[in-house]
């Protein structure tokens, strides 16, 4: 087969293929690449097809973590077994695109696409998961929640040229995980992931769609953790959810060109955060 299309059979072969030709684009589901190819905005010089790399579609336990292969599709992530392990990711998977897109689109492709529309990233940031980036030199683990979300596309910070996203390492957590997604016009969405551990004081919240990357609301998380009753884990006041929403919106400061749009986005972030807390804590 010619060098314009490579169909590696293993992870090593795939990584070697990308290292040999850094212009080559990896293709798994194609749901992010092909709209741009069809519209003529991307002309791939070479493709590395990942259909035959079975290792990318595996998952397994690793101590207190679950390793999810980058080639797992949204439909697979929403299945009952993986949904019981990482509920927030399954909830995000359930709200992606159409049935046809969920059947093909993959976790790794979504991280690589990394636009504001990458729904997996706020979930991974809230879970404090790490992304495995593999090159012939070895594997680097990168944590999306430690990157600079306002600075530009996360994929460029996450991945070095020639590296392939092979999987995600997600801590297995007890407690609740919520995911809320809201359309804000023009095909844009805001997403919010909330993780509240069983240990009182452990709250994590990340917002997607507001900035180029997922943004954690560290101060609001601490405030909410302080409002949890140390014995029951419930919130001390029914108004805490709405207050938390306002704090998250103040901290995240969503980006938009117009002031009115910014005000709208702030409102939507506040509502998403309030709903996530209401679902997580009841009431």
């Amino acid at each position: 087969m010619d060098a314009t299309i490579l169909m590696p059979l293993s992870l090593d072969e795939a990584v070697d293929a990308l290292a040999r030709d850094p212009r080559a684009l990896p293709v798994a589901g194609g749901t992010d690449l092909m709209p741009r190819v069809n519209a003529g905005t991307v002309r791939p010089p070479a493709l590395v097809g990942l259909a035959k790399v079975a290792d990318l579609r595996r998952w397994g336990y690793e101590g207190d973590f679950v390793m999810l292969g980058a080639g797992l599709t949204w439909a697979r992530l929403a299945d009952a077994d993986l949904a019981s392990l990482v509920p927030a990711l399954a909830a995000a998977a359930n709200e992606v695109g159409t049935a046809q897109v969920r059947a093909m689109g993959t976790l790794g492709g979504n991280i690589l696409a990394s636009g504001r529309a990458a729904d997996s990233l706020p979930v991974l940031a809230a879970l404090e998961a790490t992304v495995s980036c593999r090159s012939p030199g070895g594997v680097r683990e990168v944590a999306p929640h430690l990157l600079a979300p306002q600075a530009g596309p996360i994929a460029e910070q996450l991945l070095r040229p020639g590296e392939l996203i092979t999987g995600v390492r997600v801590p297995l957590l007890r407690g609740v995980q919520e995911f809320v997604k809201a359309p804000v016009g023009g095909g844009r969405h805001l997403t919010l992931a909330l993780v509240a551990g069983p240990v009182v004081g452990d709250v994590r919240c990340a917002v997607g769609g507001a900035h180029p990357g997922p943004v954690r609301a560290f101060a609001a998380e601490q405030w909410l953790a302080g409002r949890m009753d140390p014995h029951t884990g419930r919130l001390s006041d029914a108004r805490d959810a709405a207050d938390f929403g306002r704090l998250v919106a103040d901290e995240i400061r969503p980006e938009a060109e117009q002031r009115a749009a910014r005000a709208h986005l702030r409102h939507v972030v506040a509502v998403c955060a309030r709903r996530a807390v209401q679902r997580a804590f009841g009431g």
Partner: protein
Amino acid sequence: MSGPGFDFDAAPTTSYVLRVNGEARLIENAWIGENLLYVLRERLGLPGAKDGCGQGVCGTCTVHLDGVAVSACLVAAATLGDREVRTIEDLDNDPETAGVQRALVESGAVQCGYCVPGVVASACALLARSSEPGEVEIRRALDGHPCRCAGPHPMVDAVRTAARRRAPRETHSTMMFNVIAPPAAGGTE
């Protein structure tokens, strides 16, 4: 496929074998960025899947890939390897498909008809994996078919009717006990 400033002579091409409707078809000297829909319609003479948006939104290009409904316009045809494509032309040979088609007509889900081959493909994929899909499951399976003529409700009714009408099938799940166990790791999809 074309775009301003795109030099077709310099575009990278490849040749590969595509498994379509049970046959191995040779695709020669094709641009590597061609989507499956273009290959099916323009190179293999299978016009059943329709070209709508090219962005994976309209669902008119839906075909089966290893038995699952996918948007052909979002699939890079040259990277499919040995995965099996089935188009509406071949699905049409199944008796199940006739039941779905009849139910769609009877429910008033067919007006302009442009999206119908895709709807039939999605409905058949759903009925193949789920013997008695509930309303939520049907709506989720058809959420990639925004029909602007008849709206979604008649097609949901049609799938429910088609599922009800077919002969009840023996399934293993009716014979087995439910075993509560933590999900086992490993394995491919």
